[in-house]
Structures are given as C-alpha cells and as structure tokens.
C-alpha cells in the first residue's frame, strides 16, 4: 500500500473517529434533549461518513477495484438521520421535556407540539 494512500486513509479515519466521539460527547454533555439531538444527527453522521470514506478508499486499494458500496450507507444515513431527529424532537416536545434554562423562545414548544403557527412573544406571555 502506498504511503500516501495510507496517510489519507488514516487521516480520514481519525477525523471520522473524532467526529463520532464528539457526537457522543455531545450526547453525554449537552444539557437538554434538544441539544443532545444535534450530536448524533450531525457529528456522528459526518464522523461515520469519514470512516466509510476511509474504508472505501482502503478497500478499493486492497481489492484492486473501486469499492463504493460504503457510499450507500452514507447516503442512507443522510436521508434517514434528519427524520429520526425530527421524530425524536417531536417526541421530546410531546413528552414536555424541559428545555435548558438558557433556551430562547422555549414557549414555542407549546405551540409547536400542537402544530399550531407560532404566536408572538406578547401573546405567549398573556396566554
């Protein structure tokens, strides 16, 4: 295996791994459900993309032909991850999970969970 291929593969791998870890750290550290949803849906997906890319290059090199089926997994994740996040965010709102204190416009959860259009701050305060 040529050195440069190995370098690229390794770098992509490390980057991917880092993002995966960051995603999980986010899940671990962030203070409310809505924030935590950002971790897995973004960082982890991207991290996985990195690892898959690395695997793709590596396997193509190893097998001697272009091994692009790893792309399919990425494609799949890119399509599905937002939906998962969306459904889970809906679920969180439905469960009336508390938002962290610093959250702005947290009153929007009330209208959002009923799928109503937003009301202005004043309205929200009065209702």
């Amino acid at each position, binding site marked *: 295996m040529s050195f440069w291929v190995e370098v690229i593969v390794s770098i992509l791998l490390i980057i991917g791994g880092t993002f995966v870890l960051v995603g999980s750290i986010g899940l671990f550290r962030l203070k409310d459900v809505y924030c935590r949803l950002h971790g897995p849906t973004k960082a982890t997906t991207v991290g996985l993309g990195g690892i898959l890319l690395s695997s793709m290059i590596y396997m193509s090199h190893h097998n001697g032909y272009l091994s692009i089926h790893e792309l399919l997994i990425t494609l*799949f994740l890119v*399509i*599905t991850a937002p*939906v998962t996040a*969306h*459904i889970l965010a*809906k679920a969180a709102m*439905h*469960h*009336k999970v508390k938002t962290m204190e610093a959250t702005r416009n947290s009153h929007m959860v009330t209208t959002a*969970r*009923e*799928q109503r259009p937003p009301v202005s701050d004043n309205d929200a305060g009065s209702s």
Partner: protein
Amino acid sequence: MSLFWIPVLLVLGVLVPIICERFGRNVCTVATMALPGLALAKILSIVPEVFAGNVITEYLSWIPSAGLILSLRVDGLALLFALLILGIGLLIIFYASYYLSEEEAIGRFYAYLILFMTAMLSIVLANNLLQLWMAWEITSISSFLLISFWSSKSESRKGARMALTVTGAGGLALLAGFLLIGDIVGSYDLSVVLNSGDTIRDHALYPVALLLVLAGAFTKSAQFPFHFWLPHAMAAPTPVSAYLHSATMVKAGIFLLALFYPVLAGTDLWFFVVSMTGLATFLIGAYLALFQHDLKGLLAYSTISHLGLITLLLGINTQLAAIAALFHIMNHAVFKASLFMAAGIIDHETGTRDMRRLNGLWKYMPHTATLATVSAASMAGIPLFNGFLSKEMFFAETLDQVALGSLSWMIPVLATLGGILSVAYSMRFIHDVFFNKEPEGLPKTPAEPPRYMKFPVEILVVICLLVGIVPDFMIGDLLAISATALLPDGPLPEYSLSIWHGLNLPLLMSVIAIFGGLLVYAYRHPLYRFQSQFRETDAKLVFEGIMQGGIQQVSRLHNTLSNGSLQRYIALLLILVIVMTAIPIIQLDSAAGNLTDQAVNGIEITLAMLLCISAVATAILHKQRMIALIAISVVGLIVSITFARFSAPDLALTQLAVEIVTVILLMLALFFLPQKTPADSAPKRIVRDLGIAAILGGIVATINYAIITRPFDSISDFFIANSKTGGGGTNVVNVILVDFRGFDTLGEITVLGIAALGIFKLLTRIRLSMPTANDKGIAWSKDVHPPILVMISQSLLPLALLVSAYIFIRGHNLPGGGFIAGLVTSVAIIQQYIAHGVDWIKPRIKLNYQNLIAWGVLLAALTGVGSWLFDRPFLTSWFDYFDIPWIGKIELASAIIFDLGVYLTVVGATLLILANLGKLTTEHRPTVEEE
C-alpha cells in the same frame, strides 16, 4: 365340543338379555337362561369323565410371552363350584324375574348377572393363574355393577364402592401373589403350580406369597377384619345378595383357599393365619348376626360367620377338615341362597325387612314360612337337615387338632360357642318373623308371593332335606371327587356321610349348641340391652369418613404442591437443572481445557462490558418497561456485533433483523399492556430468584468455558469440503441451511408459519382497552402520520426492496439468504405501515399473507419433492453452471427456489403478525372467529 364353549356361551349370554328385553319379561328371562343352561348341560356332560378321576384340561395360546395361555381345567373342585354357580345361577335368574318390578331394566340386570356368572365360572375353570386373576377382578367389577343397580340410592353407590375398594385391594395383592408364585414355579399353569407345592413352601418368599394370596382370599370372602363390606353390599337387589354374597362370589375366596390347599397349606403359618382368621370371623359374624334387625343384615353376618367356619376348617390342616369344609361349602350355598330368596319374598310382599315390624307372618304366608323354616333349621345345624351334617363334621375336626398346644382345647369350646350363637340367630329368623305376635305397621298387607317365585326356594329346600337325610346318595361322589382335588396325594381318608355316628363328643357339642342357642334366644333382651351400650359403628360411615378424609388430605397436599404459580414451576425446573448439571460439573477438577485463551483488546472488553451492563440493566429496570426494551435492544445489537466479530456474518445479519422486528412487536404489544410493573414480589422471593439465576449463570458459563477451551473433531470439515462441489455455494452456512440441513430450515419456516397462524388466532375477537394517554398522563399526539416521515418512508421502500433482493441473491455464496431478505422486506413494509397507517395501506397492498405463507412453505417443500423425479431422496439439491455469451458463467440451483420459499414464508408470517397486530386499533381488526 371344546370346554371353551362354556365361557364363550356365557359371554354371548351377556348380550342376550339386552337384545331380548324388548320382547317382554318372560321371553327375556327364558332367553337369558338358555345359554347358561347350555353351559350347564356341557358341564353335566363331562361329569362322568371327572368322576372317573380325570382332570380335563384344554389350552388355547394367547400371549405366551406374558404367560397368558388361556387354559381351562375341570377337576372335582371345579366341577363342584361350576354346578353351584350355574345351578343356583339359573334359579336366581328365574327368581329375579318375579323380584324386580316391572319398570326396572331387567335386561341390564340380567346382563350384569350373566357377566358375573361368566367371571365366576371362569375363576373355577381357569387353569392359568393370570387368567384366574382376570376373572377374579371381573367378579369384583360385576359385583360393583350389581350392588349399585339401584344407583339412585346413596347406600347402593357407597356399598358398591366399598365392596369394590376392599375386594379390589385384595385382588391386587392376589395378583402380586400370583406373579410371585409364577416366578417361583416358573409357570402360571395351574397344573404345574399344583404339582409344585414343595418348591413353593420351601422358597424363601413363601410367606410373602402366602400372605398376598390370603389377602386376596380373605377380602373376597369377607374374613375378619375385611368383613365389613359385606353387610353393606346388601343394598343390592336380593337376588344379587342370594347369588353373589352368599352362594358364589364370596365363596371365590374359599375356592382359592381350597385350590391352593395342596400347594400352600400344611405349614404352621398357614394354620395359624387361616384358622385364627376363620375362627375370629366365625365368632364375630355369629355374634353380630344376633343383633341385626334387618333380615338381610342377619343373613349377611350369618354368611360371614359361615365363611369363617369354612376358613377355619381349611386352616386346620387335617384331611378330614378339608373334606368337611367342602361339604359345608355346598350346604351353605344351598340353604343360604334359599334363605335369601325367602327374605326377598318377605321383603317383596311386606315392603320391609325390619324384624321389629315383621311378626307373625306364618298366618299370612304359611308356604313361604315353611320353606324358610326348613332352611333356617339347616343353617342352625338341626339334625335331618344338611347343615347338621357338615357342622357335626366341623365340631369333630375342632377336637382333632393340637396345633395350639396346651391351648388347643379352646378351639372346640369357641366352636361350640359359635354353634350356640348360630342356633340363636336362626331361631330369631324363624320366631321373630313368622311368630311372635302380629306384624306392626307394614307398608303392604303380607300375602303369599306369585306361585313360581317360590319355585327356586322349593328346589333348594328339597335339596337341603335330601342331603340331610340321604347324604351319601345325594352328594357322596361329588364330595369325594372334589376332595381329591384338595388331597391329591394318596387315597382319601375314611369318613362317613351319615346322620348317626353314635353318641360321641361332636353330638354332645351339637346338643349343647342347640339348647344353648335356644336359651340365648330366650334371654335375648338383656343381651340386646348389653349390646346397645356399645355405640354401633356403621362401617359405611367409617369407611366413607376415612375415604373422604383421605381424599381431602390428598387434595390439600395436591393443592399445596401445584398452586398454579408459574414462578414456582419455573423455579422447580431450574432448580432441577442446577442439581442435575452441577453434579457432573463438580467432578470436573478444572473448567479450563488445554486451549489457551485468545488475546483480547479494549474494544472487545468494552463491548463485553456494554453487553453485561445492559443485560443487568434490563433485569434491574424491567419495571419501567420501555426502558427495559431499549436496554434489551442494546443487548441484541451487541450480540449481533459479537457474531460479526467471531466470523459469523450471516448470524449477525439475522440477529439484527430479528431483533428489530421483535422490538417493534414488543412495542406494538406494550401499547396494550401496563407501561410499568406496579407491584413486585416479596424481597425473599427476589433473593431466591437472584440465587437461582446466579447459580445457573455460573453453571452455564462454566460448561461453556469447559467446552470452548477444549479442541474437538467435528463433522463440519465435510461441509466445508463439499459446500462448493456438492452444494454449489461458497457460503457454507447458507449451503448448510438450504442444502445439507435444508430439512431443518423447512421445519423452521413451518414453525414460523404456524406461529403466524396461531397469532392470528390469538388476535381474533381480542377485546383490548387502549390507553388514551401515556404513563405520564399526557394525551397522545394528534399528529398521526408526520408528513416528513411519510415522505422519507415511501422513498426508502424501493431502496429497501432492492437491498433485500441483493441479500437474497447473493446468499448462496456470500452472507445473506432468503430469511434475512424476507425480514428486510418485511421491515420495509412495516415501516410503511408505521408511516402511513393501516387505513392507507390496506387498500394498496392486496397480498394475502396467509397464502403467502402457504405458498412459501409449499415452494420449499415442493423443491424437496422435486428431487423424487430424478430418483433422489427428498431435498436432494441440484445446481449447474451455464455459460451465457456476453454475460459469462451463471449458476442455477434448486436451492434458490428453496430459499425463495423461505423468503415468502418469512414475509408472509412477519406481515401476518405485525400487520394484524397493527390493525387492532382500526376497523380492520380480525373479528371473524369462525373460519
């Protein structure tokens, strides 16, 4: 004509009354008597041969390996009993046609009676111990049916059950005795057994065999202490009492003693047990007979007493005593049967059997009274009647023994005492019923019975008189020839059958007995007063009490043991597993084998840690069900990663797919189940369960470790070697599944299909309450089908189907296959159900999932049958490679069709389950219960 015709005729005779009942009572009676009559004729026809001293035997092989060789034997003893059974039996049938009232099912009654007769006759004619025993048991059963003939009466049922229980118990002891004798002798053939007396008596197990046989004989013959059932058997119609409980069945025990006399008698044990039992029974029966107010009760206890007398004679171990016993058997049968019939007439004509109300009947029914008086005199042992002769022989024999040493004098004294009591109760039977003032408050005005109802009694009374007056002429030959059966060795001892033997001690005893008896009867009232101090114990109540109490205790024990607690059953199961596996495992000095542990890295440790933590978390958090479900999903995920890690990609895929489908299923179900487990088991139980779980976990781990650290040879090398050449695939696991062990897979998809059908059955007409809010009390969201989800789901469907096609097609050579492909398809469709809902999907998917299952399994099975066309066994695979221009080499294999069957079944089954489960909350729910 073969002897076997006798039982055959009688068995056929059982059916006659049932068939003839519709033609009227008289026809029925005559028809019923016909076949036993023929049988009697057959017996009579061989009388000369038997009198000539021959023993007639016939054999018919049946189950020789079990010693069951049907075989009949007629010797003197059998002849004597056969004549009694058939002769008295015919009289009883005749009598019964008058006794039973018009509305009673006489056909059934006769059928039972003939059944009994068959069995009884089979006992005496049997030449094989097991055959004898079979007949013996059938007498118990038919006796049960006859006693309970008036089944609506509680006393009939209870009396019948008691008789069955006691004689049944004795019968089982007898079987054990017979088996033991069969073992000792090496044959069940009576001809052999009867010639092996010394072998048996010398055998170490002789006492056991003897006691077992005696248990059978004594229970049947109502010997003390088993006598209590007999009086209660009197709940039977009187013909039954006359036949079974005086003349024949109770004599079966006596017959048995007589039959085995040459084999078992002659020892001290025999003497002691048999004679003492007989003596006790004789006295107790006679004493209790005196105090009965029921006519039949008196006769019943008198029967017990006389049976005791005969037993005593057989126990005395002298030859003359044996002859006396035989003589008394005949005499007792005759006079007691006639007495019972007389009692039946009285009952029939007056409506009561209570001697306190029956008085002075001579005036109303003098003819009957005369007959009864003659029989009763015979019972009392008055000279000129047959009872006198045998009783005098009995007195003589009690004098002629020394077995009790210096106490031997007691036996004649007690015998005389018994004689006194016999006279007393006989006197009561005559005086209290036919004389002694006027009747009191009888339900009916007494009168003579129909003319022919007395006919059987008359015959028997005539016999009583004839035997009593000219005994030698009447029964001398019969007695002699039957005695030779008991005393086969050498000539019979001298004895004389005549009325007058001169002035001797036995005559004195008779005289004492007669006058003593009269005296006792005269002073009976103080005796009654004395006896009334003792609380009368009703054997029936005691017996029922013991039975009920026993059954209650047993039920309590049973209910304590099987309390309907599944937890207990599982715990018992697992404890048994622990005990049984721990014992071998403890013998293993060390679990480790000689393979060294492979190295582990951090990832593996992490995975193991995650696995263990989530497994334990599932257990700990099981009360919060959704969380437990999430935790177990992690377990499933890591298990599939583990499979992947240990070179089992197929397993990883399968595990993963199954896991997801199962979790979806559980979620669907959880909606209808409580969300949380509110109450829990007591801490003690939790500790117990933890203990069981921990030990079992330890044992499983130990066994697992012991296995995987040892090398082994397996048949798998064959599969690897032949996968490509023999199965046409490079994925050995898949080739095993669809080819080498395709039969397992066929079974497996059958299981899946049946499960789906069963689940559909479970879901039909299910009435579930749906929670309207979650466990936090938050009402469900109103967004039933989130548009974004709907959109993405429908775009993913073609992709998922493509992936499933991909997994299916490559399965034979690379990880994949029909099963996983099927699950992927199912999950994709389920995803559509989740996103769109049932109402939307239902009109759009026209698949009949039931047919899909059927076709799937059918396809797989047909692939298997297809190999028959090529003369190969079921499921023999076929594959070949074809070179197609431009495309190259492609492989076609029957396994692909098989796998397609698997695919269809999986899709059909999964969707049948999940879709129908989903439908529960919609109007499409399965409601048609009937197919």
